[in-house]
Each structure stands twice: as C-alpha cells, then as structure tokens.
C-alpha cells in the first residue's frame, strides 16, 4: 500500500510542479521513477508517456474551448510528429538504457538553462493579449515545421516527454506563430504524438499497469491543482529553486548513464 501511495504522491508532485512551471509532467516522472523507484529507464519512459497523454488531453481541451489552439496546423504537423514518434519508439528499444539516461540528463540541463534564460528575458512572454495578433505572412516554413515535428516526435518517444521543448520554439521562432498559440497547438499535438509511441511501449511490456495507474492518477490530480493555484503563487522563486533541482537531477541521471548511480528509494522485488 505504501508504494502505491508513494507513486501517487510522486506523480502528484510531478504534475503539480510541471503545471506550475509550464514544463509538463514527463520531465519529472522519468527521474522520479528511475532514481526514486529503481525502474529501468525505458519502463519509466513508457509510464511517463501515459501521464503526458492524460495531462495534454486536459490542457488541449481548454485551449480548444478558447480557440487558441490551431487544429489545422496541428494536424498537419502531426504528420511529422507521429512519424517521429514511431521512429523514436522503435529506436528506444534498440538503444542502451544508459544512453537514454544520458540524453535525458542533457535535456534536463537544457531545460534548466532555458528557465534561467526565460527568467532573465522577463518571463514567459506571449501570455498577454498582444500575442494573439497574427503576423501577415505566416505560416512560414511549413516544411521546416514538419521536419521539426519529426524531431519533436523522436525526442518525445525516446525521453517520455511531450516534445514541446522542440515544437514550441519551432512554431514560434521558425513559423512565426504567436507564443501562446504555439504552446496551445503543441499541447494539442502532444496527445496524438505520444499515443503513437505509447502503443509500442505498451505492446512491448514496458508499461506496468500497477505502477502506471497510481502515477498517472497522481499526475492528473497534481496538474489540475497546479493549474488552479498557479496565479496565486509567486513563480519567480519557485522557478529559480527548480533550476537547481533540475541540475541536481540531471547530474544523477548522468551518473546513472555512467553506471555511477546509487541505491534507489525502492526497487522491484
């Protein structure tokens, strides 16, 4: 019973902080399951993908209701992300788990640096109404967007994250989509993208329902709570603290990649 509740609590924390900091839960679920519960990194990625689907469905619904997400553009780019996710899902089972852990550590470090950069840049941007004004010449570089979608799909399937880390900058910087619309459209695409690779993880036995159930439940509850309280919390200090946490977790994932990892909190018995 304790392990079930710990998994739910861990998932809840991942969902809560992922939602508060705009990171998505995936980036926190994988380290939690590998470093905290001793899961093989591929099993952690498989479970993380299921958590990502659940949270992306909820947030995509809000964005669609507000007509911020671009369904047609998302559908077009999904051709790339789904292709990438299938390729990534197949590649993931051919790679050594230590390499995946190493890639994950690199992504954590990149995310930490991005958070620092956004902070010095004056915040997230794009949340104000002005971000909704569409440039006249867009969408630019549609082909480039599809290619970025393929990369985003591969990253998502390999590391158990939504792929927004690639998709949002591609839509915003490359295609000229306003930041808020890029975030909303990325959220919409994530569900379909992740589903494509999750099929592969589930069918190959990389998802344990007894671990996934409590974790996904916790993630959904945490993410829902986070979306409700985010406007009441000063995120500046939290963001800075989280940069430190991400760097520590990145170091631990890197240690795992180099086979230097210590004893996890709980292990398979």
């Amino acid at each position, binding site marked *: 019973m304790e*392990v*079930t509740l710990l*998994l739910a609590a861990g998932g809840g924390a991942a969902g809560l902080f992922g939602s508060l900091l705009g990171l998505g839960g995936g980036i926190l679920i994988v380290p939690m399951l590998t470093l905290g*519960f001793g*899961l093989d990194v591929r*099993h952690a990625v498989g479970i993380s993908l*299921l958590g990502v*689907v*659940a949270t992306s*469905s*909820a947030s*995509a*619904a*809000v964005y*669609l*209701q507000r007509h911020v*997400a*671009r*369904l*047609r*553009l998302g*559908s*077009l780019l*999904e*051709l790339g992300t*789904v292709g990438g*996710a*299938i390729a990534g*899902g*197949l590649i993931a089972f051919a790679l050594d788990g230590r390499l995946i852990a190493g890639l994950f550590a690199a992504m954590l470090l990149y995310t930490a640096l991005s958070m620092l950069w956004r902070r010095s840049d004056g915040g997230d941007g794009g949340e104000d109404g002005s971000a909704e004004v*569409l440039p006249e010449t*867009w*969408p630019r570089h549609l082909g480039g967007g599809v290619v970025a979608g393929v990369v985003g799909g591969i990253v998502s399937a390999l590391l158990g994250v939504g792929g927004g880390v690639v998709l949002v900058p591609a839509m915003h910087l490359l295609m000229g989509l306003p930041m808020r619309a890029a975030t909303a459209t990325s959220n919409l695409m994530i*569900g*379909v993208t*992740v*589903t*494509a*690779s*999750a*099929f*592969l993880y*589930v*069918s*190959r*036995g990389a*998802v*344990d*329902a*007894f*671990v*996934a*159930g*409590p974790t*996904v*439940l916790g993630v*959904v509850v945490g993410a829902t709570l986070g979306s409700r309280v985010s406007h009441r919390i000063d995120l500046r200090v939290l963001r800075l603290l989280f940069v430190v946490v991400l760097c520590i977790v990145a170091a631990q994932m890197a240690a795992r990649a180099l086979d230097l990892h210590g004893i996890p909190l*709980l*292990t*398979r018995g």
Partner: protein
Amino acid sequence: MADWQAGLGGGPARTELGLALDRRLARLLVGGMIVSVVLIGVGVALMLVAGEVPLRNPAPRIDLARLPADLAALRPEGFLWLGLLVGLGTPFARVLIAFATYAAGRDRRGALVTAAVAGSLLLSLALALGTR
C-alpha cells in the same frame, strides 16, 4: 489555398465549422480524460483493497483477451488497463472526429490531412501488435 492557410492560422478567417469543431473536440477530450481517470481511480482503489504491490518483477504485461474477465472479476489490472487504453484512445478519437467533420463539411484538405494522421496512428498500432 488561401482558405486553408487562413484556417491553419485560425486567425480572422476561422470558419463557424472550425469553431464548432474546436468545441466538440474539447468536450471529447475532457470526457475521455474523465472516463480514463475514473477507471484508473477504481483500479488504484482495488489495488489498495486487494493489497497489490507495484514494482513486481517481472512487470505484468497487457493481455487484451483477459480484459473482460478481469473487469467482471473486479481485478485491479482490468480497470487500470482499460483506463490507460481509454486515455490513449482519446487523442485517436479526436483525430477521427476531426476527419469526419472535415469530410462532412467537404473540406477535402482537412479530411486528407486528418486521414493521413489517423493512418499513421493505425500504422503505429499495427507495428505495436506485429512486433510484440
């Protein structure tokens, strides 16, 4: 082409069909997520009641043929798997409904793109089932 590009942006030229589709898909996603979470919640509650321990080695694999029997017997794994599969099926259903709406509205480009996405998802499902 101009219509399609405007639709891609979802800007000023967004059609009533597109706005109605947004609302319909939003309801579908919320509904699917609620059903999924409720099923998973029941599964977790049954896990706690039955004293099921996670992190067993090896991890139990999905067995679709056993799913109805597991549900009928109120075994936690049946509810957990069904909830997780509903979660995965929801974005897939979103693509199918978008396709059906575009096709019914004679929006050929929209129908073609969403059909291709649905086809890609079916390919991933076929690969998953074929390479177990």
